[in-house]
């Protein structure tokens, strides 16, 4: 078979340092990035001042993108059963795997599992192949874990999955409500816009979150709502909007339906302030402040994120928010509206092409007319006629053996799906698994795969993404893919061709795919489908390359995008009206039990993203939080006998992990929090996904990852230590550990119930350090260290002791980065710190400018008593700003008398 291998247009692969404007790889803010390749495989990264989403700003993750371009961890060649092969053979194997399964078990026995990090063009061809040519809608995406409830809520209320407003509304609002969103950490650039609005126009910020996050700490009002009770708040708000005369009667009458029923329902849920406050575990004053502020402030934006979505009642929670904005008519006008903050860079793009199993394509569903229309457009022989399986249900079908062939692209269900341990096993039950991946180090996925395909990564790929405000931006390449890596769209088209659909997948470039996608959005669209980018359907390749960020809808004939929708109605339901939706009684999907008396909440930390396959490569990003942890309220710590800094076992019905305890009153009693980022690829015994239950929202199918009944107990660790290594080392699975990238290597933190001496012997054995030239054995301090030096450089240093030793870690990190260790220094390699104590850094706070806590404290003692003053003195907090809440905290700490 002749394999066409279009290499990316050489004019777009810049080896000379010409700046390339592209879009950030991380969250749904969709910041513009200017990347300037250094000609050596790296690039310098700056914010794109011309991009409307960020206007030149970048958060710390975006600013550190340049540190994540190394290719040492990359998959370079296709493999079959772990053996290197050619693309031709690998693609044939995928084709055969799918074809055999379809022949034997029918099209619903195969599935694609995609990602919010794929580009729209990748997504489009994957969706087209499954729903038009294989004939099954079993194509879903990790957006199911992220945005599905918002999609469902939007569709119920608006008739289509549409974010009505835009980022400028955050600049123009007088009140910003952030619910279930740690915006300062997870969407730092938007947080900066909000902070700027606070300074400029006195915008007030209310945070609704069971945790006192850094965002909550910085708010004018924090409602530490009881877990799962957000909808009660918004139901009460709806009642008071009605009772306070704040209903926009004109708007409600002309553009909505269901107001009375929704109000009656809200009255049942939240009959009185006192009752609502009690159910939400809030004081009446705090609740009153929120209600009053909201009602008296016409320019109010209610932002919501995973705290709303990741719930078994997520869709209702979304609708509870949409209800109040519809009732007050505060939608689609400057400075107001409900606003979904998206977690992934292209969850929105995926939604547009139909990447979710319950949508067909271009915001069309599975009605016979729509199936027919899309079928004619695609000239597709085998249209799927009904919805496919949503993520959790898809993997349950895999467990039952109903789905027997799967292709996973750009995500890791073995780590991120609920019941992650069971999912890992499920993957092994498949007859056939193909994995398109960038990193060689993913947890539990590649091992289970028949075929592994090396994909091009951010910086190499070419296409478009859509951000939270419906803005389509280009991702442009500035590096050549390493090895034989190929873009995902190409892989899908090659398999489609081999399955006999060459004509329908004869795309020469992402631009050609985008044109077809745009054309489909406009196909037989009389304006009923709001997702219409027909205006982009005739872009030339050059115009596509030069495409400026633009907000849809952009129907043919219009020359500019659309900032806001729905100010004058025009909803996508057949009658043009929005729906106010009654809610189910708010309740936890699984209340705490005697065995599992706590509620586990999961989420992100500031400087990491998802499973760290990219952020884990950056030494700068590793510094803020360098190992997995669980946050526990002091009262719970006392109740369960936990100590700050010690280890605890966290168990649910699904699994167990062992994490370091952080005792903090930012948690509520009864709730614990653990970050999602660490998997077996970068840690062990810390897969938080393995704890999450598979309870899902009945409408959206989104799992409840925020309130999982859990128990916690002390997990006695006798030994703690670290390995500093120049190379990535394989480590035993029985060892609790976490990896952290540092300059010129990695640091692995570990802990064990074994005694330090015995553990050190075991690990020395594992690492082949017996013959190492450096040893320290100090039973008096229960401290053991070994190191090997190659060519005067530190190769490996293993340190095992009774407790974690930050000084020793800092010293080893320093040694690892040294080009040559001289004799005077060599004497101290196995010491617990630098011979010169001044070398020890303290915890980094501002990752952008590398400012640590000690310097901030020193500046504070020197008189810099505000975040601004610290910024003026040290630059800390003046770039991405995500550390500003922490700086404020440090300053408060300095002010308190010791």
């Amino acid at each position, binding site marked *: 078979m002749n394999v066409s291998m279009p290499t990316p247009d050489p004019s777009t692969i810049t080896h000379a340092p010409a700046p390339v404007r592209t879009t950030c790889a991380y969250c749904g803010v969709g910041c513009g990035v200017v990347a300037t390749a250094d000609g050596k495989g790296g690039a310098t990264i700056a914010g794109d001042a011309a991009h409307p989403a960020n206007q030149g700003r970048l958060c710390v993750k975006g600013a550190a993108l340049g540190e994540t371009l190394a290719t040492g961890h990359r998959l370079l060649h296709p493999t079959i059963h772990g053996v290197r092969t050619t693309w031709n053979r690998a693609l044939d194997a995928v084709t055969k795997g799918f074809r055999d399964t379809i022949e034997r078990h029918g099209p619903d026995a195969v599935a694609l599992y995609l990602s919010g990090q794929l580009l729209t063009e990748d997504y489009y061809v994957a969706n087209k192949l499954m729903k038009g040519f294989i004939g099954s809608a079993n194509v879903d995406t990790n957006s199911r874990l992220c945005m599905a409830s918002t999609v469902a809520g939007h569709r119920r209320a608006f008739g289509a999955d549409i974010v009505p407003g835009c980022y400028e509304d955050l600049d123009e609002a007088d009140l910003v409500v952030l619910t279930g969103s740690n915006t300062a950490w997870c969407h730092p650039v938007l947080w900066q816009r909000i902070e700027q609005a606070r300074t400029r126009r006195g915008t007030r910020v209310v945070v609704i979150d069971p945790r006192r996050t850094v965002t909550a700490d910085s708010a004018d009002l924090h409602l530490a709502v009881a877990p799962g009770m957000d909808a009660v708040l918004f139901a009460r708000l709806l009642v008071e909007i009605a009772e306070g005369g704040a209903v926009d009667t004109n708007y409600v009458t002309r553009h909505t339906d269901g107001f009375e029923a929704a109000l009656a329902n809200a009255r049942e849920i939240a009959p009185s302030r006192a009752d609502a406050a009690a159910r939400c575990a809030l004081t009446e004053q705090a609740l009153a402040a929120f209600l009053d502020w909201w009602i008296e402030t016409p320019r109010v934006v209610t932002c919501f994120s995973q705290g709303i979505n990741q719930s078994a009642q997520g869709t209702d929670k979304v609708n509870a928010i949409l209800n109040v904005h519809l009732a007050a008519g505060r939608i689609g006008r400057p400075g107001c509206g409900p606003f979904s903050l998206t977690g992934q860079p292209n969850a929105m793009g995926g939604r547009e092409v139909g990447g979710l199993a319950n949508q067909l394509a271009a915001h069309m569903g599975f009605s016979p007319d729509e199936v027919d229309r899309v079928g004619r457009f695609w000239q597709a022989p085998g249209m799927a006629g009904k919805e496919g399986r949503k993520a959790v249900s898809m993997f349950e079908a895999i467990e039952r053996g109903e789905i027997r062939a799967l292709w996973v692209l750009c995500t890791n269900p073995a780590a991120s799906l609920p019941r992650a341990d069971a999912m890992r096993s499920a993957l092994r039950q498949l007859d056939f698994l193909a994995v398109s991946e960038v990193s060689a180090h993913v947890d539990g996925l590649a091992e289970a795969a028949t075929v592994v395909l090396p994909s091009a990564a951010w910086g190499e790929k070419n296409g478009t993404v859509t951000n939270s405000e419906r803005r389509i931006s280009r991702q442009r390449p500035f590096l050549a893919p390493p090895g034989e890596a190929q873009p995902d769209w190409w892989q899908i088209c090659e398999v489609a061709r081999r399955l006999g659909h060459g004509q329908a997948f004869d795309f020469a470039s992402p631009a050609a795919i985008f044109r077809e996608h745009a054309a489909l959005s406009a196909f037989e669209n009389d304006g009923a489908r709001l997702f219409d980018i027909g205006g982009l359907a005739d872009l030339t390749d050059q115009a596509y390359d030069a495409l400026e960020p633009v907000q849809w809808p952009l129907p043919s004939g219009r020359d500019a995008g659309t900032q806001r929708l729905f100010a004058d109605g025009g909803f996508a339901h057949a009658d043009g009206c929005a729906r106010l939706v009654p809610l189910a009684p708010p309740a936890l999907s699984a209340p705490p039990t005697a065995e599992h008396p706590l509620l586990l909440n999961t989420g992100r930390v500031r400087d990491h993203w998802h499973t760290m396959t990219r952020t884990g490569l950056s030494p700068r990003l590793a510094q803020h939080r360098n190992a997995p942890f669980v946050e526990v309220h002091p009262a719970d710590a006392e109740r369960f006998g936990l100590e700050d800094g010690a280890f605890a076992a966290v168990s649910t019905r699904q699994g167990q992990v062992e994490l370091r305890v952080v005792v903090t009153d930012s948690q509520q009693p009864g709730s614990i929090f653990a970050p999602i980022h660490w998997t077996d690829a970068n840690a062990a015994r810390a897969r938080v996904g393995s704890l999450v239950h598979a309870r899902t929202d009945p409408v959206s199918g989104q799992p409840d990852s925020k309130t999982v009944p859990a128990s916690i107990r002390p997990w006695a660790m006798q030994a703690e230590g670290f390995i500093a290594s120049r190379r990535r080392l394989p480590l035993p699975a029985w060892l609790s550990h976490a990896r952290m990238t540092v300059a010129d290597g990695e640091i692995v933190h570990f802990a064990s119930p074994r005694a330090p001496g015995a553990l050190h012997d075991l690990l020395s054995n594992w690492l082949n350090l017996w013959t190492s030239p450096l*040893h320290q054995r100090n*039973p008096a301090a229960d401290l053991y260290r070994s190191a090997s030096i190659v060519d005067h450089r530190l190769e490996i240093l293993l340190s095992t002791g009774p407790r974690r030793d930050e000084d020793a870690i800092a010293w080893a990190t320093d040694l690892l980065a040294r080009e040559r260790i001289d004799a005077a220094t060599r004497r101290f390699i196995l010491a617990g710190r630098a*011979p010169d104590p001044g070398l020890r850094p303290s915890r980094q706070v501002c990752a952008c400018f590398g400012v640590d806590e000690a310097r901030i404290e020193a500046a504070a003692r020197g008189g810099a008593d505000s975040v601004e003053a610290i910024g003026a003195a040290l630059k800390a907090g003046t770039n991405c700003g995500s550390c500003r809440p922490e700086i404020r905290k440090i300053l408060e700490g300095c002010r308190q008398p010791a």
Partner: protein
Amino acid sequence: MTEKLLIIGNGMASVRLCEELAAHAPGRFETSVVGAEPRPGYNRVLLSALLAGDIGRDAIALRDEAWYGAQGIRLVTGQTVTGLDPAARTAHLANGTALSFDRVVLATGSSAIRLPIPGMTLPGVTTFRDFADLPALQEAARLNRRIAVIGGGLLGIEAAYGLAKGGAKVTLVHVMDRLMERQLDRRTAAFLKRAVERKGIRVLLNAQTQEVEGEDKAQALLFADGSRLPVDMVVVAVGVRPNTGLAKAADLPVGRGVLVDDGLATVVPFIHAIGECAEHRGQVYGLVEPAYEQARVLARRWGGDTKAAYEGTALSTNLKVSGIPVFSAGDFLGDGNDDILLEDRGAGLCKRLVLKDNRLIGAAMVGEAEDAVWYKELIRAGSDISAIRESLIFGRAFCETAPSRVLREAA
């Protein structure tokens, strides 16, 4: 009238005593020194360096005759004292003359031992103790002869080093399972062995010499296991014996050495002994440091410091063996459970600290001994080291520069 002081012996202890007298009791004595070697006392420790050619002859000199003259000390070289008459306070010399004294100090040192095995008297078998031993060894080294050095203690290693450096093909033969077993434990001794081998010296351990074979000169060593080592020359460096003949003849109590009290006096108050010939509290020191300490105590007592007393020297070895720092002190063996160990094979460094009840009780190290004095002091003082037990092995400077407080608080 000035007291007459006679110092018998002109080794390092004797020279130091003269120096201390000048400092602490100037003018008290009319002093005479009688030495058997035909030259003023020299630094015996440096003989191997001289043999190696690392230093010149001048460098081992201590005090010349002019210095003795300036101090008013009468120096007699090349004469042995053959008898001591305590009652008459008279010493008899080999040339038939006699010297009277009011006080006498025995500083007669010690002599190299030869093994009680056949062939020890063959030509080509020599000891390495005196300046006089040097010429033959230097010549043999220059001619690249095969030389066996019997004895893996300090002296043997030094001799082997000097000979190897001078050009000889040297085999160091030791009967024990490790070098310097009286100063080093197995692990540190292994590092010393590697360091010695790196100097081009072959080391045979567990090698018990049964005989030196040869017709009219030494030709081979025959070992207990039946193996043979062909040689051109044999240097015996198996130890020394205190020179106690004079004391015995004078009916002074002698153990291994001449027994002295804390005032360095024998049972006869005006007869003293210092250095390698003396035995104090059951200890005969084969090292120069105790001799120096004894000389100082004696001089200070005579200078009027009645409290000056010698209470023994903490058993320690701190020296450069063939350019390799070696240090050992206290109970360097320990029970093996509580010792702190630091090894760097690449750098040839091995440090071992023996702890008991949070106190340092012994130390042995090869490859680095910069902090020897500090460790010795910690052993002597019995200080509680629990606060610095993680840093202790990295030395004094490291322990005394604690991380700054600000940074510590920031952790």
